[in-house]
């Protein structure tokens, strides 16, 4: 599968795959703040070509994320830029981040946690408009 345009921010790589899904992959050791989250959501929209798309967020390399950044990702404001979010994680540390996000931040968009990229992509395909 060929990636189209790749966008690099301070904390993530973002691109639109040919399958219509936006990938947002944390850089190794990423520590996300509110400013990073705002930059990343704006870049997701840029990569989306103005069309709401499902988003796969790969946090397997994420080290930490602030409360303000979690709240921004879960907000109604960011919901206008996507159709659903699959969170891809692996380690016990990233599982804690994912579970905290669901329990405390209550994301606005349809949201599900995965440890398998293939399963995440299969689920997201149901949200391509």
């Amino acid at each position, binding site marked *: 599968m060929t990636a189209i345009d790749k966008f690099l921010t301070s904390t993530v790589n973002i691109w639109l795959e040919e399958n219509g899904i936006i990938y947002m992959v944390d850089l190794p*050791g990423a520590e996300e703040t509110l400013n990073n989250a705002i930059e990343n959501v704006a870049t997701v929209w840029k990569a989306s070509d103005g069309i709401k798309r499902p988003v796969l967020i790969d946090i397997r390399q994420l*080290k*930490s994320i*602030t*409360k303000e950044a979690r709240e921004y990702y879960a907000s109604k404001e960011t919901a206008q830029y996507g159709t659903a979010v699959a969170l891809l994680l692996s*380690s*016990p*540390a*990233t*599982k*804690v*981040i994912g579970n*905290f996000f669901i329990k*405390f931040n209550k994301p606005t968009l349809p949201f599900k946690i995965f440890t398998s990229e293939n399963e995440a992509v299969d689920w997201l395909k149901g949200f391509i408009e």
Partner: protein
Amino acid sequence: MIKRSDKDTRIENIFDMIYKIAEGDLDVSLPVSDDRDEYDAIIIALNMMTEELKAKMEKRHDNN
């Protein structure tokens, strides 16, 4: 003499943080290592918990 391992130190740091939270200190936090192991999972949970508790207490204080 028994040499203290990194594991012992990390557990000790985690308990120190728990004691401080119990005393009402919600400004405490611990650094996360690059290992992303079970200890980091506990540290991340504690860091996030203190953030959430602090925000809730500040909100409650503002409402009173």
